[in-house]
């Protein structure tokens, strides 16, 4: 027992001391033993307090989530009634009315944005992974261009959303005279989620084992037949994940739509109508009216939608995992 603890105390310094420690094993005195034992004790104590701090950090993180979601849903639940959901908002300082038009605008915007960005993003990712990856080395200029393209997508994924808003405002609202409208917001929103879709789809495609592709080609299928019939279906859960992620992003986004969608609470009648999404409605109610209860109600619906989306994503991820293993 004594020797074991002794070596523990010595070898944790430098490797050079290992030798001296083994020669001194025979001369273990009781005082050394006591000192080493107390060292172990203090090290254990340090560990315990450090671990306690880590557990505290973990608990705080979970507590913060529970506090925020609990607070919003608890207060929001008081105003969520069928009337609140089915009545149109009436505007004004009191923030009267419900959120029916807001829900409708949100729905339009999500469908349009994701509808535009998905085909483009998935196609671009397919090219980048399936075709650009196979470009031969001697075509240096081309592969350098692909590198720049990747870097661009990568960069854009990290750019703050207000930059997309600024771009949308400059190009669609002002230069092209679309004004504050669903159209401007859709196009700006599509730009926002395009990098998300491209990156997630790329990842999903890369995760498909090469043997699948080789199998397809060996059976005499053309490259496209292999991609369409084998690679894309295999990567489908990942691609769907990217779509669901984008839906969440559009639902939660405020900055882009604040500067492109205008913020009218009225019913959107055409693609040129101004409007509000749920998130924007929360912002306007909280900053321009006294209707904090309605803001909470709207926020609660938003949070519940996000929770649902997260569940779906986790389900898909588990499915993808299982498939990759099986």
């Amino acid at each position, binding site marked *: 027992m004594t020797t074991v603890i002794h070596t523990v105390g010595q070898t944790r310094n430098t490797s050079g001391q290992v030798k001296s420690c083994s020669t001194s094993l025979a001369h273990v005195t009781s005082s050394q033993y006591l000192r080493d034992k107390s060292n172990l004790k203090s090290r254990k104590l340090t560990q315990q307090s450090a671990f306690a701090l*880590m557990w505290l*950090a973990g608990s705080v993180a979970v507590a913060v989530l529970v506090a925020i979601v609990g607070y919003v849903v608890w207060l929001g639940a008081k105003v969520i009634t069928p009337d609140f959901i089915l009545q149109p908002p009436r505007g004004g300082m009191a923030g009267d009315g419900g959120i029916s038009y807001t829900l409708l605008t949100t729905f339009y915007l999500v469908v349009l944005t994701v509808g535009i960005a998905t085909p483009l993003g998935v196609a*671009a990712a397919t090219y980048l992974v399936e075709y650009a990856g196979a470009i031969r080395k001697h075509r240096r200029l081309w592969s350098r261009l692909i590198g720049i393209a990747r870097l661009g*997508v990568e960069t854009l994924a990290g750019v*703050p959303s207000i930059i997309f808003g600024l771009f949308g405002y400059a190009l669609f609202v002002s230069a092209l005279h679309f004004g504050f409208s669903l159209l401007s917001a859709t196009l700006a929103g599509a730009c926002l989620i395009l990098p998300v879709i491209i990156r997630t789809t790329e990842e999903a495609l890369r995760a498909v084992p090469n043997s699948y592709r080789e199998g397809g080609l060996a059976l005499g299928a053309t490259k496209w037949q292999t991609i369409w019939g084998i690679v894309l279906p295999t990567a489908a859960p990942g691609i769907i994940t990217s779509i669901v992620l984008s839906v969440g992003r559009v639902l939660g986004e405020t900055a882009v739509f*604040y500067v492109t969608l205008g913020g009218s609470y009225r019913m959107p009648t055409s693609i040129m109508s101004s409007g509000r999404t749920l998130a924007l409605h929360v912002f306007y109610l909280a900053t321009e009216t006294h209707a904090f209860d309605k803001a909470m109600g709207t926020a609660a619906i*938003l949070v519940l939608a996000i*929770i649902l*989306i997260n569940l779906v994503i986790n389900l898909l991820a588990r499915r993808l995992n299982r498939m990759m293993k099986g």
Partner: protein
Amino acid sequence: MAYKSARLMDRGVKGILLAAAFLAVAIVFTIGLFILRQALPAFSQIGVFRLLSGTEWRPSQSIFGLLPMILGSLLVTLGAIVMGVPLALGCAILMAEIAPRSITAVIRPAVQLLGGIPSVVFGLFGMRVLVPLIRQIPVPSNTGFSILAASIVLAVMILPTITTVSEDAIRAVSGDYRDASLALGATKWQTIVGVVLPAARSGIVASVVLGIGRALGETMAMIMVIGNSVIIPQPLNDNPLTILLSQARTLTGNIAVEIGYSSGLQTNALYATGVVLFLLTILINSLAHALVKERAI
């Protein structure tokens, strides 16, 4: 015949996909160039240096200085980092090294969900809970809308980014390192501090850098809790810490609050704000990227 049409299809599809990739990339670069073009008049008429170092922003008098907003953004980000990083790293270490799998299975989805919650919800929570709490601090002209409130909100918002990325980095450290350290008699905590964290260093730094990027880019939650006054943040009384109770405006907030009502040179100056923000985030993200790459090697 079928083979021939399949071949034709193959080529056609390749062209379509290439076009899509080209369009997507073109959009990416258009965004950068378009904002830069709109900002150029501001840079040439006001001057880059005066724009960046000017201490006053008064669009009505055509005075455009971004220093208050730059300082606002930096202070808020700094506050968020000071509060958020220890919490986020603690969380990451707990999940990767300490907690049993059953606990991790609770914390990870919670952190993930925290990352998905819309920024307006954080802003609303900040407005209704944090701001009234901070208003209780007895300091003259303390409105509660403050750098402190904004920093707390941001600390929570950057937690998921930092936790997820650094947890990955910690998990990527080879198990051999841990075994070797434990075999030498180090405690688990000594192994974590002395071996695992240094080995995961670049990934952890990258996670913090990504968190900084996210903090600098946050817009709506900031508008809701920071007060948006265009002032250089200053302590409210003799205590220098009361600078945290000062109102401020962030770069992002400056764009969002004014763009809809702006005209002429003011609009250009706002695009210039965007360019500053754009360059700042590109710099930060490429730093994070380089760090992650270093780890991969």
